[in-house]
């Protein structure tokens, strides 16, 4: 592949060095931004599809597979003046994550403009 650099370590002149496996492993393996209808990606990386399970409930399937289901997920909402709302992972496997958004006060699911990133080791 053109422009390929093969290196095990990156070294800064004063700040020290870092093994490139930390750089690779520290990259998000998948990320997605679901639209306000919670039924399609505005933009994404590393997913093959999103399944709209109902209001505020969507399962995203990875193009790749994670080594196990212990990877890390960070999720957030983009809502003006939003309070008492959440977006969290309800279930996961090595190839899917089910994300649920809604009102924390009433525990009811609601469609919100939400996004998430997934980090961990790939299979």
């Amino acid at each position, binding site marked *: 592949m053109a422009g390929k650099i093969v290196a095990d370590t990156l070294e800064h002149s004063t700040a020290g060095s870092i093994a490139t496996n930390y750089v690779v492993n520290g990259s998000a393996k998948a990320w997605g931004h679901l639209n306000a209808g919670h039924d399609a990606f505005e933009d*994404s990386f590393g997913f093959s599809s999103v399944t709209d399970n109902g209001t505020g409930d969507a399962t995203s399937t990875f*193009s790749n597979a994670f080594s196990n289901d212990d990877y890390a997920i960070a999720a957030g909402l983009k809502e003006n003046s939003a309070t008492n709302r959440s977006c969290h992972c309800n279930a996961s496997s090595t190839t899917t994550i089910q994300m649920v958004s809604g009102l924390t006060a009433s525990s009811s699911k609601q469609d919100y403009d939400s996004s998430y990133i997934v980090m961990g080791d790939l299979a």
Partner: protein
Amino acid sequence: MQTPEFQGTHLFDRLCWAKENLDGVQSDYRVVYEDSIDECAKILVPDPNWMACALQGGILPPVWVYWELAKDEAQPDFKKHTRGYLLHQTEPMPAMTEEEAIEYLIQKDVPQHVWKTWNEGNKPKMVICRKEQLPSTREWRNAWKIAEDINATDLAA
């Protein structure tokens, strides 16, 4: 654009190449399915970047690779994947048409018990449709079901 020779290249690197070099393809196809009578219909929407990979060819592994990994994960003593190399070492799929890509995606992302028996009941439990055939608003979303009067003859027409 010509796809590089990717067999043996990690799938993550291929997806990075695709994100950098291919424009996303927003499909109008939707797959509506019911995997439980107690739940509303689910709607699978293809990811635009993934669809671009499918149409381009030479990037995605064959779907049986995912089935093999799913079998491994279903084992009671599963801890982590040990056959991830199948994703990266297996010869990638050639370019698909959009319709072929949807068929592949169904077999990858829809539960097998749904697509293998989609027409073995009083009504089809899975339908491929166009986006505009879905309700235009999400009102009563949790009550959406595949129509009772739809049948395989309608679908074939």
